[in-house]
């Protein structure tokens, strides 16, 4: 009974993963030839000599360090603030819309929103006397533009997780705190937030992994430009591996490195939490 599932798992996951590791040590460039040969760690050394790869790492780090915390704060805030508000169900459903739109579609929509001459964003800003902004043509604004899209698309994900977590907190705990004289702020800080911490941690880990994979919105809006200002690491892998020449070997090495970084980052988050617990600073997770 298990065999077909196991075979499928091997074929769909283990084989491509093994192939990626194998290819990363080979000169495997389909634009030259379908034949491959072993080149050791050359593809890995190449990454650190490749200025575009390094710039794409920098932008991905920027995206990770700005977009993810903003999404976390906004998601948690919204989840707390909409509780008990009139029309809570409608607001809740509306907030989930960005997350349900495929990133490629939202990329197209945002490209139109950011249009220099006819885009609603520049029109709206012009009402406050802001001159037209080149959202996709200026390195600073293009990066900001990508961060805004990411925050818009993925804040609802954090919100959804936290909101679901809030619903599952036993009401008697909150009532008990209130009887003890805790106000809204204290209930949040000492009852709800500690209980939500494991959930926030899971959301953070998922967002880190997801953020490292950011590809679609860049593909649909800036194509990594201007220059290499908005090249995300995953987008660069796509370009190396598919878009400009099928350099499978180098793209595999880039992918292996991404995997290592993701594992290290996720482990770092878990370790940090564990350390806080050991130092007595953490919650009850």
């Amino acid at each position, binding site marked *: 009974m298990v065999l077909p599932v196991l075979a499928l798992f091997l074929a769909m996951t283990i084989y491509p993963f093994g192939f990626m590791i194998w290819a990363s040590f080979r000169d495997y460039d389909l*634009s030259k030839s379908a034949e491959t040969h072993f080149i050791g760690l050359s593809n890995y050394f190449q990454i650190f000599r490749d200025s*575009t790869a390094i710039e794409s790492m920098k932008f991905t780090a920027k995206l990770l360090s700005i977009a993810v915390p903003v999404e976390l704060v906004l998601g948690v805030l919204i989840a707390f603030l909409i509780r008990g508000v009139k029309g809570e169900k409608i607001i809740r459903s509306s907030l989930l819309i960005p997350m349900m739109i495929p990133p490629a579609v939202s990329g197209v929509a945002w490209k139109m929103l950011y249009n*220099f*001459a006819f885009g609603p964003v520049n029109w709206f800003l012009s009402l406050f006397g802001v001159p037209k902004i080149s959202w*996709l043509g200026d390195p600073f604004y293009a990066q900001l533009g990508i961060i805004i899209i990411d925050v818009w698309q993925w804040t609802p994900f954090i919100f959804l997780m936290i909101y679901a977590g809030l619903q599952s907190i036993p009401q008697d705990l909150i009532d008990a705190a209130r009887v003890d004289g805790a106000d809204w702020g204290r209930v949040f800080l000492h009852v709800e937030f500690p209980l939500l911490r494991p959930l926030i941690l899971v959301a953070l880990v998922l967002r880190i992994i997801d953020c490292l994979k950011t590809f679609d919105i860049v593909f649909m809006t800036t194509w990594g430009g201007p220059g*290499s200002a908005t090249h995300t690491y995953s987008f660069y892998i796509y370009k190396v591996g598919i878009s400009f020449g099928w350099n499978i070997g180098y793209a595999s090495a880039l992918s292996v490195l991404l995997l290592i970084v993701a594992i290290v980052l996720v482990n770092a988050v878990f370790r940090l939490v564990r350390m806080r617990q050991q130092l007595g600073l953490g919650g009850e997770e």
Partner: protein
Amino acid sequence: MKRFLLLIFLIITSLIFSVKISVLCSPDNADALKWLAQEFMKQNPEIQVEIVPLSWEVLYPKLLQDLRSQAGSFDAFTYDVMTTGAVSFGLVDLGEFMKQHPELVPEDYDLNDFIPQVLEESGKWQGKLVGLPFYNNTMLFYYRKDLFEDPKIKQAFKEKYGRELTLPTTWEEVVEIAEFFTKKYNKSSPTDYGIALMFPRTHTLFYMYLLFFGEYRNAPLGIMRHGTADLEFGEYFTADHKPAFNSEEGLKALEMMKKLMPYSPDPLGSDYGETIEYFNQGLVAMVPQWTGPYLIFKSTLGEDKVGIIPMPGRSVSGQWALGINKFIPEDKKLAAFKFIIFATSKWADKNKFLRFAVAPARISTLQDPEVRAADPRVPALEVTYVSQTHRPRIPEEPRLEDITVEIFSKILSGELPLSMETLNDLAKKWEEILGK
């Protein structure tokens, strides 16, 4: 009832015994190819043709992947001229095929009727005929005819610049006219900006550069320095196949691009679609664009408002050819060959241009009185086809293109200095990729 059953029988047998071929193409060519496929199937009911459009970004990787793996998941395809070198290994040698199957080539199918440069560039690779020219795309310079012919505007221009407002023939003239039509520099301008330029960080910037570089690279001094460009390596290279852009001509081209940028709405953030829209909505007075958007301009602005001239500097070719996958069974090769011969025949070349504005590749089409009367682009096309520049067609082209676009984009956005040093660094990267 008997007739009905007979019909059903015929349909079933034709489905069973017919050969089905799939043709991959870019969306630009899809409507014309679909129509041609219908016409072809009327004449050849034993062959079923399926047209599969794929976006430009996906088509080339898909072709390369399929050809390398020899999967044969499609039978014929349109390929962009600059990918010829990369996909040529998977293309059927059509010259040889024609020799083996002369009965499949109609008598009036005249290879010599193709514009020689076009047949050479999009059809041939290292002496072999690997494709048949289908879409002879090139870039033209569109302008607002009504504005350029307005006596008040002409008078105002003369007062400001001391010369007549004439149609530009050089980029230096374009700069002056673009400034005149930009509200920021001329309050009474009827348009907000002078020209719509597309300098995004996509393959667009790679060909846009040639519009400028081509003028200087192919001027007498440029030819003296770099030699005549060939159709395999194009104007980016010298005659002995070294990078030509790290030169005075290369710098001048980028300087000219920068000079024009203040008169264009968001040049670094605009691509094909945006610039078409800017011209269409009356935001700009001029736009360098491919042949296709003419139909959009004509239908929105009106034929009387849209003027077309050859590119002030040099145009760039963007041809597409039809080729056959080498790794498919013989019966499919025969069917695909029949179809691409039909789709590139004299009749098809003329009718796809008249119906779908797919630029013609044959001399007979350009000389046809009906065509000349129907489409105002023909005179500009004739001039352009013999003077246009060419991108490299070598297999390394996609990679060269990507690193070049990155550096050019950084220069234009001010991230990198516009200097010979920057261009020399880029040339070094080219040489690394080319293994020189």
